[in-house]
């Protein structure tokens, strides 16, 4: 119950006050002054008790009419709870996180959940409408509520576990979408937070089906391929088992190398397994072959390392010797196989340098004649460079975030920076915090430039900016950009739950790890994108060529298959009664204006009849 216009209640207070005043005035008896009450003492008449309000039908009728009209003015309404549908609806909500793909002797946890759901569907009354909702990163309605059982079963059959950790927000969104159903069945391997459930819907309507039993799992936490021919690589392996587990780590590269490393991992231990160094590098694939391992999504990892069979050369040009030194160190840190040459652009003579460079880094300068497969421009000159147009220079900028960098963005004050006009198709990796003077400007970007990799960093890196521990974000941004520039154009290694974008103006076809094929349309900037939900290799076929994207997965909580807390509330309503006991209800507002006005009119009509009753009696008597 509530009021749409509570202020109008003042009419109620005012009108009732006036009415009561009129009433009291009319009821007030004229006080007769007498010479003495002695004369009335023996009168024998009872002295009646004084009352403020006496029962007066007309008064109460008028009060009721005024109250009704005032309440109508105030917009009195009732919040009504009513069933949302005439049919019995049933929502089947599935956890599609990585752990649901864990296998035991009888299939995956998702298979077990699917079987339970099919049983529910089979024994449900004929008029029950089922909806199927899955959640992992987001909630997705796989099958809207409907009475066609074949569609429901098909939707259940199409469910598959992803290689991401389910987010609580996704579960909440799924329950919100499911709460209009009379009964909700949640299939998961971990109980949801009771507080979150209570926040969304009545817990009595929800039945949680905890599927799967405790299982043992070994997970590849990370893969460092090392430096081909120079530095060993290593893998970090984590055991989520209660017993020692034997396993074999297989390292393969796309250049034909294969290492097989058998080992025994202690229970609940983390092992760092070195291998190599690899002779050639390239795309390195680590696979953990374990007997009794329940989860396969975290058994593979990919990494790319520049092949070490041919020495790569890099050129660093900067008028500042300190910057040249910093950049050279960074390039060597990224790839120890690099041979870095550093020059002052004013002294560099292209004619005397016959070397072919894989990467050229120019800081605060641009030499038009120089070309390489990868070109990084740092703080380009005010005159511009290549496809870049410098529109101005700002004295200081604040690094706001680094989109798609994979690390949490932190604000960082940088020095001078160029305001750049990037060509279409450029991918901005970081931009500055906007301010009233010049707005947000791109600080790091991959510039769309046909087949060549061109990167640009807009801020100046003088004064050892990249070596300052306090400015680590600037270094990470530079390293990432260099890695992107030097990586093969047709190869990407990402983590699952990442949104992958590629330049494909005409659209592309995506072949997912499970064999599913999807058509991706390009956006206005000629980019296609997809969310990598499964671990493994994605193949993106576009007009410019094929690109392979390898998605790695690891999540500590999700990979721990032994952990499964019990339900907080053991009381569950019987499935047979749950739907009828807790019908899916929705709240609505029912205004009472018409009823209140009718009540007021009725009250006034009755009052009129009471006032004219003598006349009516006379009329009746006359006719009789």
């Amino acid at each position, binding site marked *: 119950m509530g009021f749409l216009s509570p202020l109008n209640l003042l009419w109620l207070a005012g009108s009732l006050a006036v009415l009561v005043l009129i009433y009291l005035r009319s009821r007030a*008896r*004229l*006080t*007769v*002054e*007498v*010479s*003495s*009450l*002695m*004369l*009335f*003492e*023996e*009168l*024998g*008449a*009872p*002295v*009646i008790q*004084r009352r403020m309000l006496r029962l007066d039908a007309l008064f109460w009728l008028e009060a009721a009419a005024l109250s009704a009209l005032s309440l109508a003015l105030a917009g009195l309404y009732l919040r009504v709870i009513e069933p949302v549908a005439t049919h019995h609806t049933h929502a089947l909500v599935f956890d599609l996180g990585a752990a649901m793909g864990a296998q035991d002797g009888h299939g995956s946890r998702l298979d077990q959940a699917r079987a339970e759901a099919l049983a529910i569907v089979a024994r449900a009354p004929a008029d029950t409408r089922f909806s199927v909702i899955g959640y992992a990163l987001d909630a997705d309605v796989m099958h809207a509520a409907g009475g066609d059982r074949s569609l429901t079963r098909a939707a259940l059959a199409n469910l598959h576990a992803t290689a991401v950790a389910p987010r609580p927000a996704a579960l909440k969104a799924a329950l919100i979408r499911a709460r209009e159903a009379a009964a909700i069945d949640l299939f998961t391997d971990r109980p949801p937070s009771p507080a979150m459930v209570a926040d969304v819907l009545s817990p009595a309507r929800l039945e949680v089906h905890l599927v799967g039993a405790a299982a043992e799992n070994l997970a590849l936490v990370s893969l460092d391929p090392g430096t081909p021919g120079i530095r060993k690589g290593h893998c970090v392996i984590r055991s989520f088992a209660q017993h020692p587990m034997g396993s074999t780590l297989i390292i393969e590269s796309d250049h034909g190398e294969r290492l097989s490393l058998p080992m025994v991992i202690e229970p609940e231990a983390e092992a760092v397994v070195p291998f190599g160094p690899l002779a050639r590098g390239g795309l390195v694939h680590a696979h953990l072959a374990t007997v009794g391992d329940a989860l396969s999504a975290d058994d593979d990892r990919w990494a790319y390392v520049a092949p070490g069979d041919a020495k790569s050369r890099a050129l660093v040009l900067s008028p500042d010797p300190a910057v040249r030194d910093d950049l050279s160190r960074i390039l060597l840190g990224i790839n120890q196989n690099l041979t870095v040459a550093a020059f002052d652009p004013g002294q560099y003579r292209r004619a005397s340098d016959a070397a072919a460079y894989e990467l050229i880094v120019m800081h605060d300068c641009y030499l038009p004649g120089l070309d390489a497969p990868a070109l990084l421009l740092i703080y380009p000159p005010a005159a511009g460079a290549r496809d870049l147009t410098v529109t101005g220079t700002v004295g200081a900028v604040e690094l706001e975030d680094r989109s798609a960098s994979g690390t949490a963005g932190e604000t960082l004050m940088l020095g001078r920076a160029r305001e750049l006009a990037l060509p279409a198709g450029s991918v901005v990796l970081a931009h500055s915090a906007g301010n009233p003077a010049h707005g947000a400007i791109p600080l790091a970007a991959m510039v769309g430039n046909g087949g060549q990799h061109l990167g640009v960093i807009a801020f100046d890196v003088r004064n050892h900016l990249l070596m300052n521990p306090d400015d680590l974000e600037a270094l990470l941004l530079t390293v990432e950009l260099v890695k992107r520039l030097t990586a093969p154009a047709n190869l990407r290694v990402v983590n699952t739950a990442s949104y992958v974008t590629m330049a494909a103006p005409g659209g592309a076809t995506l072949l997912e790890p499970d064999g599913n094929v999807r058509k991706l349309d390009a956006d206005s900037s000629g980019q296609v994108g997809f969310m990598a939900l499964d671990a493994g290799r994605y193949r993106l076929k576009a007009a410019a060529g094929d690109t392979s994207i390898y998605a790695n997965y690891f999540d500590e909580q999700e990979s721990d298959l032994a952990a499964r807390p019990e339900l907080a509330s053991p009381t569950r309503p019987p499935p047979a009664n749950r739907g009828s006991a807790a019908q899916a209800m929705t709240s609505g507002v029912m205004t009472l204006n018409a009823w209140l006005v009718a009540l007021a009119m009725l009250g006034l009509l009755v009052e009129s009849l009471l006032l004219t009753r003598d006349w009516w009696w006379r009329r009746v008597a006359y006719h009789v």
Partner: protein
Amino acid sequence: MLEARAFEPEFLGRLDRLALGIKRARTARVGQRTLGRIHGLGIEVENFKTYAEGDDLRFLDWNAFARLDDLLLRTYRATRQVEVTVLVDASASMAVPRADDKLGFALLLGAALAYLGIGENDAVRMVSFAMHRGKLRLDRSAVYSRREMYPQLKPFINAIRPEGSTRLAAMAEQLLSERRPAGLMILLSDFLVDPSDYEDALTRLTIARHELKVVHVMGERESSGQFGDHVMRVRDSESGEVRELALGEDAGERYRRRVEELAARLRDFCTRRGITYVRAFGAPNLDHILTSEFPRLGLVV
């Protein structure tokens, strides 16, 4: 205002045929309440007595001695002025009901009695009394003894306003404290006080050898008891107390019975104390009261 009639010549002309009924003793005897004429010097021979030693020889009747050879003394009646005090209750209850003009009625009667007293060459004064704000207010007029002085009472009478409460005992105590000679006191009041109050007052005045005459004044409407509404809220004019009353069918009758009860109690008390009680209920009966009731009851002769 009824009191204005007290100075109309026509009204005064009717009063000229009347005289106050004062117990005027022919002789003054010990233990007998007498007023007016006492034994003593005078010009009117009252009686004879046998000479006793020590008698004043100036009163010896020499003619009788010569004829009868007995020593007889003449006794004379000494004419003495009687102080007549007309006490008028000026409490708030005398103004209620307004239509009855009870105070005006009482003042008219009081003025008439004062006129009669003045006509007898008695010393007459009027006194109004009421207890106002906890203090007895006793307003006294001058003493008048000649008829031509009667109009001088008018300003005093016109100045009397009804207010305060009735405290007869306090009034009597105040009067007695003035230690005036015993005289005639005519008390006009509605006597709407606790009976113990007027009994106390009248007893004190009687003991002080005053001749008392009580005029019980009530209004026409006040004494008739006619009520319109079944539920009535009444307020005491003196105490301010308010009561709501639900009146039955016989409320008027019971009210009148109550009035008669109170009047009878006062009358009985006066009878027991030898006090003249006169009932003056209703101003419309003024002529009847003056010409019939007052003489019949001995207030006037």
